[in-house]
């Protein structure tokens, strides 16, 4: 591939005329889903999230949510692990759970004809997971193997170190994948307690797309999610306060290419300047082959294969990250160019033409995200997780359109902090730290 594309998408848009409108479907037991009907192919995709994710893992049990996500589909109700998995395979049903930092997520993808069976299995996994000894230990050892393997990956090491230095003892500071000790400490009782206390209807959002009507969905919502507890156990996550500085931390590893990660403060998803900041990030480093970092660091100087920036929005923290990788001898130069671009953007801002081009990309590329039923359902769940309005798909482009060059340059001045752009380098960089 010409570029390893690492941008994290977090904004969605769509031409109002392209797909059916978003319907809000409410079941009698109070479960709500957002639905886009699409009868092109005989399949249905359902994505859901419970608020509260890996950040709520107790200290000493980091990885609890992740181990729960790996074991809830390994045996439930009358099916043991092999029976459950065999049935999924025989019916070509994809059913998975996944722990994010702020949410516990799941998805079901199925042929329309197997929809009832798929939802029945989901319900059983949510309500009656077995947590039998064999699958729990098997999943534990697989996660431990993955955590060991992650220690081989320089970019992962860099990101973890960066999070720790910026977020300190806030739960976000330990990442969302768990730790070796934490995973070893999670008991079967912890898993059962997790399911009983964390999965409540008050914390649930659902997105659905595919070959299903609102009426049919309403009934399935009741049958599948209706008997969950009304409320999950209360929890609270503190606001994160970021510790930022211009220091460069080096983690020494015997590799030919250093992995560079940098961070500064981001912007809240609901801040009035969010869209100017979003356009700003696109122009600076978020725009794939069209950003200033790409142009200066890769095209002109050949310093890297990949360089990118992205905004990260957690419920209680907002970050702005930069990533790059270059041979050890050129790390200093690469860091210098990135810092220079940061400073230049702060001081001189962007031209009207650059802003106009960014806006045509950001508004014009919207339908590209709606590639499949599965993507559409995922987007609908994501909108609710981010507390966006149901007409977001129609209004999002107007918000991008409304951004002016003055907005962008004003926000660049207030948001960019090159004097607090923290860097972590993993590798054997020459002449660092300085």
């Amino acid at each position, binding site marked *: *591939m*010409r*570029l390893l*594309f690492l941008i994290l998408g977090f904004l969605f848009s*769509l*031409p109002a005329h*392209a797909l059916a409108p978003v319907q809000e479907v409410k079941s009698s037991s109070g479960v709500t889903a957002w639905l886009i009907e*699409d009868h*092109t*192919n*005989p*399949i249905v995709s359902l994505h859901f999230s419970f608020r509260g994710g890996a950040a709520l893992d107790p200290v000493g049990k980091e990885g609890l949510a992740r181990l729960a996500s790996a074991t809830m589909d390994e045996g439930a109700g009358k099916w043991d*692990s*092999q029976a459950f*998995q*065999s049935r999924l*395979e025989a019916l*070509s049903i994809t059913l998975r759970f996944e722990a994010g930092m702020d949410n516990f997520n799941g998805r079901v993808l199925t*042929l329309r004809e197997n929809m009832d069976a798929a939802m029945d299995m989901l319900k059983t996994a949510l309500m009656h997971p077995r947590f039998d000894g064999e699958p729990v230990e*098997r999943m534990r*050892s*697989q996660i431990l*193997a*993955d955590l*060991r*393997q992650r*220690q*081989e990956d*320089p970019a992962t090491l860099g990101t973890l170190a960066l999070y720790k230095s910026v977020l300190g003892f806030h739960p976000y500071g330990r990442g969302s994948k768990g730790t070796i000790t934490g995973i070893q400490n999670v008991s079967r009782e912890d898993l059962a307690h997790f399911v009983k206390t964390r999965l409540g209807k008050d914390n649930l959002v659902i997105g659905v797309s595919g070959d299903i009507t609102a009426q049919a969905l309403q009934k399935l919502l009741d049958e599948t999610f209706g008997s969950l507890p009304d409320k999950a156990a209360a929890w609270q996550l503190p606001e994160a306060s970021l510790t930022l500085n211009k220091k460069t931390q080096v983690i020494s590893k*015997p*590799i*030919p*290419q250093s*992995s560079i990660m940098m961070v500064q403060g981001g912007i809240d998803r609901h801040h009035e300047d969010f869209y100017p900041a979003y356009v700003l990030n696109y122009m600076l480093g978020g725009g794939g*082959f*069209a950003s200033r970092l790409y*142009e200066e660091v*890769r*095209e002109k*100087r*050949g*310093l*890297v*294969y*990949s360089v990118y920036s992205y905004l990260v929005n957690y419920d209680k923290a907002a970050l702005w990250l930069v990533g790059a*990788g*270059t*041979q050890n001898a050129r790390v200093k130069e690469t860091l210098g160019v990135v810092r220079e671009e940061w400073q230049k953007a702060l001081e001189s801002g962007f031209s009207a033409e650059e802003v106009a*081009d960014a806006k*045509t*990309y950001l*508004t*014009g590329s*919207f*339908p*590209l995200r709606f*590639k*499949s*039923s*599965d993507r559409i359902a995922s987007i609908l769940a994501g909108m609710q997780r981010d507390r966006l309005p149901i007409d977001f798909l129609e209004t999002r482009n107007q918000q991008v359109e409304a951004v002016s060059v003055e907005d962008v340059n004003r926000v660049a001045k207030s948001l960019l902090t090159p004097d607090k752009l923290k860097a972590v380098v993993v590798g054997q960089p020459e002449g660092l730290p300085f």
Partner: protein
Amino acid sequence: MRYLLVILGLLLAFPVSAGVFNPKTFTLDNGMEVVLIENNRVPVVRHMVWYKVGSADEPAGKSGIAHYFEHLMFKATKKLAAGEFSKIVAKNGGQDNAFTSYDYTAYYQTVAKDRLGLVMEMEADRMTNLSLTKEVIEPERQVILEERRQRTDNNPGAQLREQIDTVQYMNHPYRIPVIGWAHEIKALSLEDLNRFYKAWYAPNNAILIVEGDVSMAELKPLAEKHYGSIPRGPEMIRLRPTEPPAHADRRVIKRDQRVRQPSLQRTYLAPSYRTSTEDDKAPYALEILENIMGGAATSRLYTSLVIDQKLAVSAGMSYSPSRLDMSELTFWASPQAGVSMAVLEEALLKEISVLLEKGVSFDEVARAQKSLVNDAVFARDNLGTAAQVIGGAMAIGLSVDQIESWPDAIQAITVEDVNRALRTVLKDQKTVTGLLLGLEDK
């Protein structure tokens, strides 16, 4: 290209008369093949041009040139400045990229349907009008060397895979990594690059694939206008050295202090769609075998090594028939903490010998066939998949009919076909075993 196969498998769920992707095709006067797959969900199109040239077509000593080209195609032409291609696509709300394999190089853009003419015009322009200079190729050479460091040299598993290929293939260019050897990349000259471009980039060596919200009535005049006017290039012959028989089992061991989770793999040369002349069912039979042995939670190797014997954290088998020349079949596993590699290897070999001795069962084959059939519906739901599958297949010389009849071919396979194919591949072959180990691992 495992991805390709899995998806190819999909189509069985549709009524036979509906075909797999139902592509429409024609050929321009200059020899360029054109394929359309309609998909009207959103007003978007995926536009791809595939060139029938990959790393295995490189001249000796010039490794990396095919992939270098993939990067250089985004540089200046007579009409556009370097980097402008991607900027114009982005300005128009589109996305673009490219990729290279042993057997082909492909370029693609995803854009709103009313921008199809624009991307075609630019793609046709760079098919013949690329103008390379020292100023352009030198920074890009550094970018490619960084790409190689990032993908291979920074990753012990990728380094092992590269070394395995060098002993798996003794004579065939599949022994050379697609990205090339660093010392040869450094030595490629402007003349080398221009010669390669003139030799391979021409309409008669290219396939145009468009998937999305467009009709043949709209596509045909656009294709004729932008690509039809380009003159035919020279006739191209893909000269591929053949592989001699191996006379020894080979072991490749990569020990590295970075490795925290060891793993092992064992590879066998296997036929591809193109090379399986004596037994034309073999590639389909081996695809079914892959599904049975596989990596899924209920596959044989996972059930035995991970669940029952508790020796491995993961285990499986992979095979892809989508190659111009021969392919390979790979068994792999990664040990549980505290399990030695010797014990794991012995257990894996036992699984292979049981497979050789007893073969697969009727039920296993039927289940695999059904699973491959159902996957088809999901593939059809994803814009871009059809273009990827059809492009990859045509670039190695398969016909549209062969792609469309894939489900029939899979359904026609019997237990005997699978057992015959697996015995031919697994029996008495000189294999390659690769071990990835930390400094302390045994």
